[in-house]
């Protein structure tokens, strides 16, 4: 095992080691204070292990593979950074409450899965880590124990399990399509275009991963869960956890243009999601809900870029999409941390330390020149440049600006602390550190991701090429935001989770079926029916056996 491979193993081992420590009462009390340490090996792995040869652990008949290519490393690094900042933020935010240790356990399991999906190189490891990040997030969402949090958690869990079912079936079909007994993702993806069940597999993959990434109409859990969770958990949910869906799409969809139709379909779905979420988001009053809708919208843009990249077979699509998503990890995570501080800072400090940096990050989502978001937009420009798609993408950037300015307005309207209140320095540092990373990270990484491996060119040059193209969506968004501020009161209110109102009907239908089945089962449990059933079974078996013999 080389050092780089050792880092990959350590990434997965560190959260597990802390989990193990939770078995004993004395170390368990110290674990919440150490949460920020657990993701650090992941950060190191992202920095030093990208592109290292995959680590294959060949147990008898079961090959586990850990691999880290450049796009995964980008996402792994950003996610690890956010997990670390949020992990430092969490104990301070939650205080000494009784459930803190339980929260830490859920946190570590989710963290393990969240970082693991970026490293998994085979179907089994991927499914395992994906299940961990999907299901354990439930514990983070219901931490507050309120009925609202519980409902959000239950809906999330239900949808997460349905997503798991989709993925399990897709993986089973993929494993069946691979001619050898290999379970490596690379082999599965290579076998996908030739599989007779190709359409079904792709549909299941898009459903399973789209659910995690929040593609409409599978996004309904996101605007419920992200606001209901405690602030640091919201940050990782919106920043890091939804990226499990993005990395899944990146990993499993063959990039070589073998999927005619699917790329366009994904792009259409992504753009629709981007606009839908803006429309729902601007009617929300809770700044966290606005942020959650912004996440849905941004993931829509990400998927649209991926879809167009697949449809047009643009080289370097995976890297560009990962870059876009990486900026979202950092910026969205940072903004959630900011919401948590809004009630703890007062006076001029509030404007200087909180609102102004937040405004800069927020405008970055629309592509304000100079922000990290502008570079993210540039990165996916080759994918989202053509004709109608280009216009729609620019319009969605204007929509993002509108939504994020709405967020800033809602953030500023939160009741401030009195002017003398000083926030404790750990959360403040976590927020400012993440904000800094969201701006500087893209600048550092845009030009080169490895020594001598420039992949997008010079960032300054790229920015200078078309400053107007970047600026007009921001300006349009700002004008729209002014209009929204003036007449926004006339907009209808959309409940959190918009389409979820339709689910009530499905639930009632399910209850009716359940009652009918229970009734039927009760009838079958009567002695005469059971005796008759036994007789019929003998005859039916005899008949079937005879038919087979004849």
């Amino acid at each position, binding site marked *: 095992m080389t050092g780089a491979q050792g880092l990959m193993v350590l990434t997965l081992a560190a959260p597990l080691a802390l989990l193990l420590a939770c078995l004993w009462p004395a170390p368990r009390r110290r674990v919440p204070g150490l949460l920020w340490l657990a993701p650090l090996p992941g950060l190191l792995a992202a920095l030093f292990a990208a592109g290292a040869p995959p680590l294959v652990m060949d147990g008898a008949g079961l090959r586990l593979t850990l691999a880290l290519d450049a796009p995964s490393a980008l996402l792994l690094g950003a996610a690890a950074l956010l997990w670390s900042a949020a992990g430092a933020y969490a104990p301070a935010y939650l205080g000494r409450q009784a459930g803190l240790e339980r929260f830490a356990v859920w946190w570590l399991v989710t963290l393990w899965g969240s970082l693991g999906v970026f490293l998994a190189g085979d179907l*089994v490891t991927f499914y395992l880590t994906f299940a961990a990040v999907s299901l354990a997030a439930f514990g983070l969402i219901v931490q507050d124990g309120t009925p609202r949090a519980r409902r959000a958690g239950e809906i999330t869990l239900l949808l997460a399990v349905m997503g798991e079912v989709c993925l399990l079936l897709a993986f089973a079909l993929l494993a069946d399509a691979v001619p050898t007994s290999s379970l490596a993702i690379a082999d599965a993806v290579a076998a996908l275009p030739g599989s007779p069940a190709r359409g079904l597999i792709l549909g299941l993959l898009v459903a399973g991963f789209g659910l995690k990434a929040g593609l409409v109409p599978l996004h309904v859990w996101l605007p419920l869960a992200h606001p209901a969770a405690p602030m640091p958990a919201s940050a990782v949910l919106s920043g890091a956890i939804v990226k499990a869906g993005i990395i899944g799409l990146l990993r499993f969809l063959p990039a070589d243009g073998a999927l005619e139709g699917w790329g366009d379909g994904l792009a259409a779905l992504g753009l629709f999601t981007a606009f839908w979420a803006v429309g729902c988001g601007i009617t929300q009053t809770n700044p966290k809900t606005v942020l959650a809708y912004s996440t849905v919208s941004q993931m829509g843009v990400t998927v649209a870029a991926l879809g167009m990249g697949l449809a047009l077979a643009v080289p370097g699509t995976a890297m560009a999409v990962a870059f876009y998503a990486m900026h979202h990890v950092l910026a969205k995570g940072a903004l959630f941390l900011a919401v948590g501080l809004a009630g703890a800072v007062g006076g001029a400090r509030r404007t200087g330390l909180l609102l102004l940096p937040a405004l800069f990050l927020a405008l970055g989502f629309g592509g304000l020149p100079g922000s990290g978001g502008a570079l993210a937009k540039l990165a996916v420009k080759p994918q989202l440049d053509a004709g109608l798609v280009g216009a729609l993408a620019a319009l969605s950037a204007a929509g993002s600006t509108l939504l994020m300015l709405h967020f800033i307005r809602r953030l500023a309207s939160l009741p401030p602390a009195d002017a003398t209140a000083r926030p404790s320095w750990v959360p403040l540092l976590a927020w400012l550190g993440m904000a800094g990373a969201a701006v500087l990270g893209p600048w550092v990484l845009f030009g080169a991701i490895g020594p001598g491996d420039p992949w997008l060119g010079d960032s300054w040059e790229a920015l200078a090429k078309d400053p107007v193209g970047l600026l007009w969506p921001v300006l349009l968004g700002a004008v729209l935001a002014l209009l929204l501020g003036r007449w926004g009161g006339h907009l209808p209110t959309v409940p959190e989770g918009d389409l979820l109102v339709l689910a009530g009907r499905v639930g009632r239908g399910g209850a009716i079926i359940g009652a009918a089945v229970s009734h039927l089962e009760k009838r079958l449990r009567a002695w005469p029916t059971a005796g008759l059933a036994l007789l019929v079974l003998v005859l039916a078996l005899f008949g079937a056996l005879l038919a087979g013999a004849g």
Partner: protein
Amino acid sequence: MTATTPAGWLLVVALVLPVAGMLLAFVLGGRAAERLALLLLGLGVGVGVAVSAAVLRMGAPIVYLPGGWAPPLGLALVADGVAAAMLLTTALVLFAVALFGRAAHATPPDQAETRAALAYWCFLLALAGSLAAAFLGGDLFNLFVALEMLTFAALSLACLEGKPSQFRSELRYLLFALIGSVLYLLGTALLYGGYGTLDFRLLAGRTRADLPTLLAAALMTAGLAAKMALFPLHLWLPPAHAGAPPAASALLSGLVVKAAFVLLLRVWIWVLPPLPAMAAAPLLAALGAAAILVGSLVALRQARLKLLVAYSTVAQIGYLFLMLPLVLSGAAETASHAWLGGLLQAGSHAFAKAAMFLAAGLIATALGHDRVTALGGAGQAVPRAVFAFGLAGLSLMGIPPSGGFTAKWLLLTSALGDGQWWWAAVILGGGLLTGGYVYRVLAGTIAAPPGDAPRPRPLPHGPQNVALGLALISVALGLLPLASFGLVQIGRPGALGALP
């Protein structure tokens, strides 16, 4: 097949130890019975390991011919892969349940022995003996006798508390099991008339697809299905398993139904000619699928925790039947995957369901009731039991890493590989419904107790740890690499390198 193999004596030990122990315990009474049972059931684990190791080492079934008489004249004891694996599973679950029962059925030095305690330890040994006989018997009539002994030992454990409601529901169980026995017995008579032997290894490959054989198979299968509570013949299972004391429920749901399952495999995989079996297997699998869907849906709507767990057994038994069409009609690789998947389901369900019933019993004891809607506070009172319930639930749902996941994954991939995708849909749908009822329980237990409820009573860690240990085993089965389950393929007709 004609001589005792090396290590054949182990099979005699596996049978004689619990039976002799039971007789001795009955004579010695109370405290001695407890010690003897714990000792012998502990040794049983060792014997189980030794038998599995011997089968694995030889790569072939180990056989013991009592008195040196070879079938068809004599009776053989046979441990092939299935038998060895089930013997080991049984030994572990039995030992765990014995440890669990120490809290309720100990006889302290200064007290007179109670009838219930003596009966508990004696019948635990009787159950161990009859299970060993049911797995190791080579003769279909002997297996029937073992199954009858098993029914009576299990009944006695289930009625240990002597409540009228228990007698009522166990009587229902007894009646239905007896009807099943009659059908099975009729079948064996027909087979004996046709072939002059009931040794399943002698019958393998020699049976004809004629009327008496097929009628015999239909009768025996229906009888065994009644004993396994295959939907819609499950009327007796929910009250019997839910009404029994937790230790007995764990054994009934975890182990007793599996003995009939092994017998069913003997009939379908060994005795029946392949063509008719292939044609009729989908019928059984369809009933299994119905069991999964209906059982899970009804479990989801139960008001009592133990009934919920019992209906979960109805559903999980359904998965065992899904393997039949896949093993019988699949290509060699599909068949071997489905076979392993089915047996892994039997094993992991044994551990998980035993853990679940023990945990449900502890939760009910701590709260003083087992209403699913009022489980609040159990998480604080018996945290390990709740955790055990959750882990066992993950295994039943098929969430990785767990034995249940590996089992369902294998069944799923073989169903898809064989083009029988409808079984895959059932497996996935069942997992979703299972998740629903497991969540209902877990969400209830971690909620705060209602204000007016009496405070739940914290219980000692010992029994909780037993439940947790069983749940952990069911999870750990999923962490073993698949190749380490090569054991269960040994001696299977159609397996590579075995009889055709």
